[in-house]
């Protein structure tokens, strides 16, 4: 009788462990960041791309409805794909687009802007990628929609598409 109880207990326990590990194996091992994080925007200081002047991110918040922080680089192919969407958004006066140039060659970055147009009201240099980390970025392009109270409303991973564009425009309404 005692052995039977022990056997049932061991069987249940083994089955329980098996179930837990099986559940763990089915979970995704790929990091998926929370796109609706509602985190506080981390302020930063950085140099501007075109005149090398120091800029404090707090000075960018000047009463606009929305702020778009776009992390980009000239070597990033998806950044080229989304550039026309950013150009389209830059026509909207209630939105301010700030570019964060991530680990890039500055001459090539300037050439990129001259070739494809400048949708940004300011472009800052993130030479070592630390500004990206302070925002919680892990790849580029990434775009953060921030409100005037410095709350991150939405995070877009990868190139912006037409659907994202509509969503951003809806946030303005």
């Amino acid at each position, binding site marked *: 009788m005692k052995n039977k109880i022990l056997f049932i207990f061991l069987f249940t*326990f083994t089955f329980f*462990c098996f179930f*837990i590990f099986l559940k763990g194996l089915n979970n995704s*091992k790929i*990091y998926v*960041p*929370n796109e609706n994080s509602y985190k506080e925007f981390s302020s930063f200081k950085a140099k501007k791309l075109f005149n090398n002047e120091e800029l404090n991110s707090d000075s960018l918040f000047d009463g606009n409805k929305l702020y778009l922080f776009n992390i980009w680089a000239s070597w990033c192919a998806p950044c080229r794909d989304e550039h026309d969407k950013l150009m389209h958004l830059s026509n909207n006066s209630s939105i301010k687009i700030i570019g964060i140039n*991530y*680990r890039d060659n500055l001459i090539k970055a300037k050439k990129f802007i001259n070739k494809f147009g400048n949708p940004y009201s300011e472009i800052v240099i993130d030479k*070592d*990628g*630390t500004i*990206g*980390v*302070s*925002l*919680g970025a*892990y*790849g580029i392009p990434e775009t953060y929609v921030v409100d005037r109270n410095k709350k991150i409303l939405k995070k877009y991973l990868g190139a912006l598409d037409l659907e994202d564009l509509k969503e951003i425009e809806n946030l303005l309404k």
Partner: protein
Amino acid sequence: MNYFKKIILIFFYFFLFEAYAQNSNIDLINKISKNIRCLICQGQSVYDSQSDFAISIKVVIQKKLDEGYSENAIYDYLKKKYGQWIVYEPDFNKNTFLLWLLPILIFVIGGILILKKSKIIKL
């Protein structure tokens, strides 16, 4: 001449101390980066990876150490930015308590069974 020797000795110890401090800082950066997961790599730590993300994280670790952050404060900073997933060693909480307790439980039950079989204790 004696005065000159003293200056050389001071410089010697100063550079020795600097080299030691720098080396211990590198050791700590390596230790921390081994415990940080490279989020864009498959099964690699930040220490092992040469991706842009890993290089940026290493720079952040160095900068935070220079600012006087402790090892745990750096983990907390990165967890705040990327979530629990970025560290290899998860915190003890309602989602991870089984992960921490199960091996201990298995060890205790296994121990009791072995002792019972070897008739050291009677259950």
